[in-house]
Each structure stands twice: as C-alpha cells, then as structure tokens.
C-alpha cells in the first residue's frame, strides 16, 4: 500500500520543469500525479510515476536531485464530506499529515497523503474500511 513518490528539488529557473518532463517522456515514463510545492526561490516537484526506481536513476544521471518519499493513495467518494471523513479518522488517531494533494473526477476522488508515520496512516485507514490503492495500480493509472 506504500507508494513511492518522486521528490525533485528544482531551482527557480525557467525551463527546468520542462527539462524534467522531457526526460521522463523520452524514457517512456508516465506521470500519474504531480504537484509542486513552491517556495520563494525553489520548488519541490512531487510526482507519482510508473517505474519509480528507473525514473530516479535516469533523473540522477541527468543531474537532478531526486529522492523517493513514501506516500499513500486514498480513495474517497466525490461528495461533500468525503475527505473530511478520512481526515477525521487520522486526526482522532493523532496522526500528523505533512502534505497532501488530491483530484476528483466523476464519482471518486484520489488523495495522496504524506506523513512521517506513513505505515500508521495505512493501518488506521484500513482498519476503518477506507480504500487505499495498491502501488502497482497507481503506477499504471
């Protein structure tokens, strides 16, 4: 249930994100999810891709600083209170979330969650009958 997310440190320079996505495209690596945390003079690109280990190797070879971070991907219904229900469970269990990003379409919403205690996140959500996506499925979305 643990999903390996790529985190890439990018300087605030025009064209840098373009280079990043070109390298992935040239190597036939698909991006399933992407979000950027932007600070004043740099950004951190967080993305979920097919074949994450290969992507890390190729990006490193091309001079990017890239780490793998463990995240979970939660499925909630696309309706009012869908996210609240899941987050309340985490809050009730005193689990702190570092960041998350989400997108909804049609009847479902997908939420990527990062926490320092990611295994605990997964256990708590599973025990409360919430649906988590398997890594193999996420990489291929």
């Amino acid at each position, binding site marked *: 249930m643990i999903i390996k997310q790529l985190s890439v440190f990018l300087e605030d320079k025009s064209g840098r994100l373009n280079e990043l996505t070109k390298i992935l495209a040239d190597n036939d690596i698909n991006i399933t999810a992407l979000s950027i945390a932007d600070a004043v003079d740099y950004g951190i690109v967080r993305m979920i891709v097919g074949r994450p280990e290969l992507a890390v190797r190729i990006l490193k070879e091309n001079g*990017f600083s890239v*780490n793998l971070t463990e995240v979970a991907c939660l499925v909630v219904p696309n309706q009012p209170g869908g996210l609240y229900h899941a987050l309340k469970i985490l809050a009730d269990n005193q689990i702190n979330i570092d960041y998350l990003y989400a997108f909804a379409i049609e009847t479902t919403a997908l939420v990527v969650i990062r926490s320092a205690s990611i295994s605990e996140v997964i256990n708590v959500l599973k025990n409360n009958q919430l649906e988590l996506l398997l890594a193999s499925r996420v990489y291929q979305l």
Partner: protein
Amino acid sequence: MIWNPSVECASREQMREIQSQCLTSMLERIYKSVPFYRNKLQEKGIEPGDIKSVDQLKDLPFTLKNDLRDNYPFGLFTVPQADIVRLHASSGTSGKPTVVGYTGNDIAMWSEIVARSLAMANVTQQDIIQVAYGYGLFTGGLGLHYGAEKLGALVIPISGGNTKKQLQLMVDLGSTVLACTPSYAALLGESIAREGIRREDLRLRVGVFGAEPWTEEMRAQLQQLLGIKAYDIYGLSEIIGPGVSMECEHQCGNHINEDHFIPEIIDPKTLEILPYGELGELVLTPVSKEAMPLLRFRTRDLTRLHAETCACGRTLVRMEKCLGRTDDMLIIRGVNVFPSQVESVLLELAETSPHYQLIVSRENNLDSLEIKVEIDEQFWSDEVKQLEALKNRIKSNIQSVLGISATIRLVEPRSIERSEGKAKRVIDNRK
C-alpha cells in the same frame, strides 16, 4: 623525515646568519642589475654595502604586486635572458599577467624546498604522487612535480581536470598522495562517492593541498571523503610557487623555508613590523633567488608567525593557515568578510555541501550579500518547512559569524560551477 636537518633545525642564530649573508649578496645583485630597485634604494639613501644584517630588512623598500605589472615582462630580472631556463606567469585577472623567471639554480632550489615540504607530510621515496595541479604557466603542477622527483617518489603528472581519468589512475596505479587545490580535491572526493569506488580500492593516504585558502572544516571533510591526512602547502608564484611553507604532521602552522624566504608580518595600514603572534600581512623576501629576487614582497595574505621550536624538531618559523588574502576580503556594509568564514559555517551543517558562491550587489547604495548554497544530494528533505528551517539555520549562523545578514539561496547539487583549479567563490557586482 626531515629532509635537510642542518637548515630546518638550525638555531635561530644560525638562521639569522644564513639570512644576513643572502640578503647582503641579494642587495648587491639587484642594485647592480635592476634599475627599479636601484632607484628605490637610492631614494632611501641606501648603498648595498650598508646592509649587513637581516635586522636591517625593516629599513628596505617594499615590492607590490603592481610593481611586477609595471615592470612587465622582464623589468625585474637580475640575470641576462640566456641564464633564464623557465618562465611562469600568474593569471592576469585585472589586466596584465605577472611573469616570473627561474635560472637553473632557482629550479634546483625550488625542487629542494618542495622535497622538504613533501617530507614534512611524511611522503617518501616509496610514494606514488598524483599531481593534479595544473601544469603550465601556473606554478602548482611543475612545482610539485620537480620536488616529488627530487624526493625520489613516483610522479603521475596527470595535471588538473579529466576527473574520470584521475579516478581510474588513482585506483589502477594505487596513488598514495594526491596534490591539487582543495576545491578540486572536494570534487574528486564527491566523484569517488558517486562512481561507487570503495575505500579499499584506494591506497591514498596523504593530500597536499594549496593555492587557495581553505578552512579546518574543509580539512575534516576532505580527510573523511578521501580517507587521507590533508596537509596545507603554501606558496605564491611571485615568490617561487608552492613550497614557500608547509605543514608538518603536527599541523600547528606551516613551516616557512626561511633560509630562502625571509618572513615578516606588518600592519597593512601603518606598514610597521608586528611581533610574533600578531595578526598582519605576510611580507616575504625570496633572498636566494637568482633570476628575480624581490625585496619585501607584500603577499596580501593575513596570518601570524610563531617562532617556538615545533614538536617535530624543526626550528623554521611557522605561519598560521591564512584566513584569506586581503585581495579576497570583501567589505560588505563596512564589515570585513572572508569567503573562508562562509565555508566554515556551511561545512558544520550536514545538509549542505562545501560548494557555495557569494554574490555581492549594491541596491539603493546598500550592499547586499546573497549566498548560493548547494543542498546535499543525500540529506535534503522534500518538505518546504524543513528546507526553510535549514535556510534559517544557515542565515543565523552566518549572521553570528560574519556579523551581517545574508540572503540564503538553496540551489541544486552540482549547479555551482566546479573548478578543476582554483574555485571562483565570489561574484562582486558592485564593481
């Protein structure tokens, strides 16, 4: 091993005698052959025969870097061109380069003092020395080369650059000593880690680093990266090149080969001589040089001298590791800043690498300092709050060490240009 005990362990009285004799003879030579010095000495009413002791050095005129430029290329040579066997030149960052000549005896003397220096670092005939200083007009490569041969060690004259080849030969030939600039040593160390070369594949045990100022923190980092003991070698092309002074195994300052280079410390403002132990500008008189002896050359390097006999047995005066050249010193909002101080701060933090650049600008008549810092490839967090906390930590450490605030800019690993020779640490946009 002490290469030349009769000089390196001479009593202070013996050393003064050697220096006095050389000084008298040098004054005769420059008075006779160099109009520049003849004029300067005449202005002060000094005839060569007047100077009998090294104690009178304080009455003699100084030589500045600009005097070398003004007399470019051969104006300060004391011998006919036929007696010169080699030239070196310093990079002319501001205008003309400076040219330095050597006779056959000068080259022999240089080889001797570099052999002494290597022996101070416990390098022996058994060692394999990879000389990764640049060969050419720069004195580093050939200086180390001739000294290492004089010592009888095996020299790999690979010169600077070509990092892949450096690593291959280091492993295949089993280099035991690496000689290069500390910034290139850092690059090599980084590359060793990245190429997955294991410690047991290397036989390196000693690093001989110089040609740019470096800190104790950098020493610790290089020793750890390369698995060596790192020694500082000091020199400057105007005087001869590397080997003017060198650390022994006790690393309590560099022993100056003062039978050839008479050291003084002066207050750069008043030009008064300062006593041992006080911080000031190092002045050197390369007293035995034939082709181009200089009188009281102002090095612009700030240091202190210590005269007590060293635990290694040498009596040669020791100079502290240079804080930096007065030329490298930046004055930002009226505060003196040396790039080496920034290096110390960065190397104390695990999340940053020793690769950095200072950018000084002036906006609305106010100086601003930006420090570009590469994040460490291994130890960066993907959370903005952690990176911002790191920035704040750097900022507050810089503030407490330098006394001024700086903008910290985190940049990608390997994005600051790497140097195979001397690193370019400062971009001053105020000029």
